[in-house]
């Protein structure tokens, strides 16, 4: 019966294929097909009403117009900054949840990170606007405390965008970090301390290398979310938001220029892919490991 063992894997592979078929079809229909369509769109140009020719004009427009370049780079830089800030804010929180807080306290901290997601992003962002606008709560409080002589506009600054983005992204950084930090044996920290390590050197030599997959996973998720965010930068940034997703929206919806929008979309996809690749290279992680351990 030498055939029997060979038949089993064949049969099993078919079963696996059948089991995965709905998910694969779903992926194909909702992710792959629209992207193929968008790719085709991005490589054509309108020459007259309802007449299109294959062309690189959309990409040429992007590279030829400094405005689009500027917004593109600005979005990338601000997203990277927001990711770094999120990491800075999330790390102590994750550390507290994983290492210091016990039982109920740790659950409570998690809930605090979850609260922003109890309301929709729109409501949350509008809440920020009510809080920060010149006639809003915070400027009034600052005047009341005597810190400013008259209400100041706290909206429509890059800093406001960053604060909003960090707030929105916090949970996505905290969760992988907690998972990673929880698996860090306390004895390693004690051992490092015992061997003469101090806070900073232990963080650098022991904690960060251990948490690297979590940090990388968190950063990838947060960076992608931030890069693709539309509402927060647009609403909080106001007239100066200059977020690339907004450009895409504008091209698709108000300019009826699907070709340009599709090209922008692909450029954004390329950017996020490049940044993720770069992040993995710099941190020396493998994508599959990061995703598994996150």
């Amino acid at each position: 019966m030498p055939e029997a063992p060979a038949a089993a894997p064949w049969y099993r592979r078919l079963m696996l294929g059948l089991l995965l078929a709905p998910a694969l079809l779903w992926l194909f229909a909702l992710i792959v097909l629209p992207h193929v369509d968008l790719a085709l769109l991005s490589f054509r140009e309108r020459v007259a009403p309802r007449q299109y020719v294959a062309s690189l004009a959309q990409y040429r427009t992007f590279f030829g117009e400094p405005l689009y370049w500027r917004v593109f780079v600005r979005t990338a830089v601000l997203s990277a900054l927001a990711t770094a800030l999120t990491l800075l804010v999330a790390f102590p929180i994750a550390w507290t949840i994983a290492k210091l807080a016990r039982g109920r306290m740790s659950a409570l901290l998690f809930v605090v990170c979850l609260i922003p997601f109890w309301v929709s992003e729109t409501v949350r962002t509008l809440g920020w606007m009510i809080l920060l606008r010149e006639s809003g709560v915070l400027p009034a409080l600052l005047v009341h405390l005597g810190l400013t002589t008259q209400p100041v506009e706290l909206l429509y600054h890059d800093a406001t965008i960053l604060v909003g983005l960090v707030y929105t992204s916090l949970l996505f950084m905290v969760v992988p970090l907690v998972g990673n930090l929880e698996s860090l044996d306390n004895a390693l920290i004690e051992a490092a301390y015992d061997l003469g390590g101090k806070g900073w050197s232990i963080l650098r030599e022991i904690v960060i290398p251990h948490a690297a997959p979590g940090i990388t996973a968190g950063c990838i998720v947060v960076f992608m979310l931030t890069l693709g965010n539309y509402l927060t930068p647009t609403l909080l940034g106001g007239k100066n938001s200059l977020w690339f997703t907004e450009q895409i929206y504008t091209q698709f919806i108000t300019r009826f220029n699907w070709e340009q929008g599709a090209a922008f979309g692909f450029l954004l996809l390329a950017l996020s892919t490049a940044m993720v690749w770069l992040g993995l290279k710099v941190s020396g992680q493998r994508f599959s490991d990061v995703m598994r351990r996150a």
Partner: protein
Amino acid sequence: MSAALLLALLAGVQARADNAQVLKIITWADYVPAEVIAQFGKETGIQVQVTLSNNEEMISKLRATGGAGFDLAQPSQDRILGAQQEFRIYKPFDTGKVRLDEFVPELLDIIRKNATIDGKLYGLPYIWGTEGLIYNSKRTRISDYPDLCKPELRGRTAVRLKRPTLMAFALASGRNPFALYDNTKAYTALMEQVGKTLAACKVNFRFFYDNKDQLLNGVRSGEIDAAMMWDSGGWALNRANPDIKFINPRSGAIAWMDTFALTARGRNDAAAYAWINFVMRPEIAAKVARSVGNFTAARGAEALMDPRIRAQFAETFPDGLKNIKWYPAIPPGLEAIEGAILDRVKAAD
């Protein structure tokens, strides 16, 4: 088993039959009041489903589906021709099915001029109004669009980052942008000049607003002292606070008109015609006018209009509609020129 299938099939057919009694309209806020929907339903048994939108989204949504998903759309009269030539999202009216004598003839003439393709009419007038300026007379006094850029109004004005703002500032520069619609080169040059003006003025704009409420909030909270605004919003602000004035700018208010347009793949034209004939009855049109705060294209509805709004209209436009500019139809491709300018304004420091 097959009996169950048959039942399911029949149920599907039944559901489809029910769908025939639904009219799907994509329109602007306040254009289709609940009260009017209820009355229409009582008379005809047709349910009305409303989706709120604006010109660009309306066109984009219809473009994405090739003109399906809605039975009736209400784009502005200047946004029919170009969109139809480019995307084929509308279908022409059978004018025999509409009681044309219910419409104000002057408005019908405008639409005939702007929304006729190959002799077929693609739009019917519904609601019209103007876009001018508002200001808080306690804080400042302005008379034309460029006054929004006065140094003392730094950070205290607002406009939309859309084509009406470009048109307004172009008019204020002494040129007529509408006359250059067919001259791409001259139009581009004019728009570039306007773009520079707006970019220089950007410090004065607190924000670019996307919807009426955003601006109304800003004015009510005292953050905005002057802005470009629609008449209905301006008059509403004035009724609440007499210090806030809505004026016809020296360069002229710009008049817009929103329309009825049948969608290319709309399923329920009969219901659409029934709805149009229903809402254009003077007494129904008056209800709509009260809801939206603007005048409708229904003949005789004006007499039933809120007298306060009529008084406000007379105050803003003492010369009637003389100094008002109607948008001509936008030829395809114009938005791309304007879009590049608007992008530059947005990116300006």
